[in-house]
């Protein structure tokens, strides 16, 4: 599970992957992150209008899965933290 010290590095990695996604036409950005109860929540939203919901959802799931596969568990990419 991520520590306070590790969180900025993980967020930076997500940002880098979002740059790669933007190169393929899916424009998303990190708008917030929060470490809570040993989980790192990273809020990812469209950075411009017109991003298909399915592209948004699939890109987030893909990045999250890749993070998990490289040992970065307890990281969740979410569309909002509001309920």
């Amino acid at each position, binding site marked *: 599970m991520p520590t306070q010290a590790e969180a900025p590095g993980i967020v930076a990695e997500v940002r880098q992957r979002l740059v790669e996604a933007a190169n393929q036409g899916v424009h998303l950005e990190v708008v917030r992150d929060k470490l809570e109860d040993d989980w790192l929540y990273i809020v990812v939203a469209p950075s411009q209008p017109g991003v298909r919901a399915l592209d948004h959802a699939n890109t*987030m799931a893909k990045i999250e899965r890749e993070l998990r596969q490289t040992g970065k568990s307890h990281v969740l990419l979410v*569309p909002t933290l509001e309920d």
Partner: protein
Amino acid sequence: MCHGEQRLSCVGSECQFALLKQLVRSYLPLKPPDANDSVWSVIRKLTGKIAKGGRMPETWLDVARDARKSASSLLTEDHNRSATARAYYAAYAKITHELVATAGLPMPPGREGPNHSRIRSIISTSMPNMAQPKRDKLSEMLGRLYTLRIDADYRPSSPVGSGEARAAISLMNTIFESF
């Protein structure tokens, strides 16, 4: 007037049921002089039956099934954003039922279900009768549904068409069938 437990058996036809609804409604505002009187036992039972007859959900599983049905109907009527939102909610309710009814997890104060943004961490750590890889998969599917739902409900600038709605229904059905 039905005043005995044995008369409950007459609750069969629509007509009799409507009459009994009236009977219950006329009694509901009253304070029972004797709560042990058999008529109050009948009223308590009828109140429950009216809730079922009126299709009022009583458990998270009822909510889940109702939302699933709605999601499928909305898809056939091309209400893509609404179908997507209902599909997420159906999956959320189905998982919440499992967390509450099977695992017996306590919910946050003042709520009957987990926060939408936190439910995935609960799935990953506490989903009952499920190995970790399946928990991770379930969490991922609900995460995709949640993103679709947020875009459908709160981001009009994000296109949500039949492709999104069909994907949402498919994820919902997979979740329903996975436990």
